[in-house]
């Protein structure tokens, strides 16, 4: 049971998320945007209000859904024109880039209902506002929210990098907790630097909560150099849509002070629960179980930690038939996934050259030596089986004899050999499972958190 004196007010767009889960033949459709945070609060049994932004055709569905899932007070804060607020999500598991596409985003217009919103805010009681801004929001919206003096404004800044670079719109707003994730454009495709981030945000926020996907979370405090490292406690990931939003909401419901380690850890546990299923009643039961964990267990439970900047230093050897005459879309995809998460995949053929039949023995030895040197620089091997490539199979054996962890990614399901099936640390035909295992092997080594 969470002890809360007043509800949380959720403000932001409600979207329609459309995606296909692995193993499914049908597309799925569910309310997204701030519905993820709302679903989580309902699962935790925490009171909340909603001021939503959406096109009119969704209003009845939105209000019906929220009323059946615990909302106290609800209003439409702004109306969307030009865009249906539909998000197509290419990879809901976030093995790599989720390929998130908001339809008709370039012609989306949002019209604020200022009088309605201001009256709603004055009539409802709440202590915290959790706001998920978008670049299409009218600037008056954040002004209305930030001038409310009886509550604290918290922001998830994933979709508005300008907020960070402008230092809170040049000091116009003050924020309690600022949430950001490594899924945001501040990190990918080009990382703008942690020092730039930290140098900007504390002019307008009290704490920065940086969510790093399967690598855990870090919390940075304004006062002094305090940084908390919070592990990820992964479950079998069914989806990665809205998981960070659920983390934000849980943290605000639980926190008693800034940099509340217990609240951050339990939020990480609850977020994993959200990612484990799309069945809401199962999710609720699971979250209630999470809340039953003792404080002592939550504070000492080990998980996996792998900060964003540390990953670039981790070399991952890609053993695969990366020859110019081989069709290899699975290799390209997995390498992209690794780069999305800021790892450093090493592809020996691209770095050292491709052996050819005309090479003499001296050239072959040179290539072999160069490839081995790369292997020695790597902490982990991912072997991608596109067919029974002799080199790949030998490399697997060499890596295991050196004590290097090996993941075999078998997208074409061709493994038909006892040693190949049992020797590696993990054999999978699923890209998401491959990426999760990378985090598990490398992130789980840091048992101090």
């Amino acid at each position, binding site marked *: 049971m969470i002890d809360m004196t007043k509800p949380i007010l959720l403000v932001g767009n409600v979207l329609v998320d459309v995606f296909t889960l692995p193993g*499914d033949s049908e597309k799925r459709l569910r309310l997204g945007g701030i519905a993820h945070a709302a679903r989580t609060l309902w699962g935790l049994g925490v009171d909340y209000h909603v001021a939503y932004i959406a096109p009119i055709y969704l209003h009845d569905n939105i209000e019906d*859904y929220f009323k*059946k899932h615990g909302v106290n007070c609800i209003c439409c804060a702004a109306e969307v024109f030009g865009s249906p607020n539909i998000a197509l999500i290419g990879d809901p598991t976030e093995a790599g880039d989720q390929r998130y596409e908001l339809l008709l985003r370039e012609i989306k217009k949002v019209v604020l209902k200022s009088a309605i919103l201001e009256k709603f805010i004055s009539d409802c009681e709440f202590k915290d506002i959790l706001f998920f801004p978008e670049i299409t929001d009218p600037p008056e919206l954040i002004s209305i929210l930030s001038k409310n003096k009886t509550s604290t404004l918290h922001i998830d800044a994933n979709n508005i990098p300008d907020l960070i670079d402008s230092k809170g719109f040049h000091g116009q707003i003050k924020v309690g907790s600022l949430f950001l994730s490594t899924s945001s454009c501040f990190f990918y495709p080009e990382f703008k630097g942690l020092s730039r981030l930290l140098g900007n945000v504390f002019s307008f926020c009290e704490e920065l909560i940086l969510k790093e996907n399967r690598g855990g979370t870090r919390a940075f405090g304004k006062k002094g150099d305090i940084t908390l490292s919070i592990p990820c406690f992964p479950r079998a990931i069914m989806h990665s849509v809205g998981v960070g939003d659920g983390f934000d909401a849980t943290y605000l419901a639980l926190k008693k002070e800034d940099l509340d380690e217990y609240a951050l850890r339990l939020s990480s546990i609850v977020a994993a629960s959200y990612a484990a299923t799309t*069945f809401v*009643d199962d999710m609720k*039961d699971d979250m209630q*179980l999470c809340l039953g964990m003792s404080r002592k267990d939550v504070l000492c439970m080990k998980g996996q930690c792998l900060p964003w900047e540390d990953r670039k230093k981790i070399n991952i050897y890609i053993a695969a038939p990366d020859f110019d005459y081989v069709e290899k879309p699975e290799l390209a995809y997995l390498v992209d996934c690794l780069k999305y998460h800021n790892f450093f995949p090493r592809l020996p053929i691209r770095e050292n050259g491709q052996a050819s039949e005309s090479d003499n023995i001296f050239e072959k030895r040179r290539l072999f030596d160069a490839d081995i040197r790369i292997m020695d620089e790597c902490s982990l091997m991912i072997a991608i089986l596109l067919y029974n490539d002799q080199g790949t199979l030998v490399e697997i054996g060499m890596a295991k004899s050196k004590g290097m962890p090996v993941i075999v990614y078998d997208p074409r399901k061709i493994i038909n050999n006892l040693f190949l099936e049992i020797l590696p640390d993990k054999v999978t035909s699923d890209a998401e499972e491959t990426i999760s295992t990378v985090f598990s092997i490398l992130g789980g080594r840091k048992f101090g958190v």
Partner: protein
Amino acid sequence: MGSTGTGRFSDYSGTPDGRRSGGNGQGGSGGSGGSDCDRAIGDIQLEEVGRCQFFITKNDLPQKHSDVSLDSELVSGRLAIKDQKSGLIIGYLPTRYNYLLSCMNEGFSYVGIVNSIVNEKTFPRVWVDLAPSV
């Protein structure tokens, strides 16, 4: 089935689409979570076997079909599987099974057996099956 299909919003609490076991016949997955406490879990590969008490003490692995149990308390922050005969820790459950801690808080306990071992000296491995004990 947890929001399957695009005809309408269907993931409402209290409906067949609210639970994996709701069974509206549409097929597909949707995930775990919920009341997994009473489910048996098969073929779990334990972690850190080579650095745990059993392997270090005996320089060997437990035999296939040995009885095991899940320790009710965290050991160094992890869920530990013990050999029932010796009481020594064989290895740890992967962190994705941490939810079992919540289940144990609800009164569940788990026992099982060793289903396989690979006694490769540089990378010893043990797999167990677990089930809630009655």
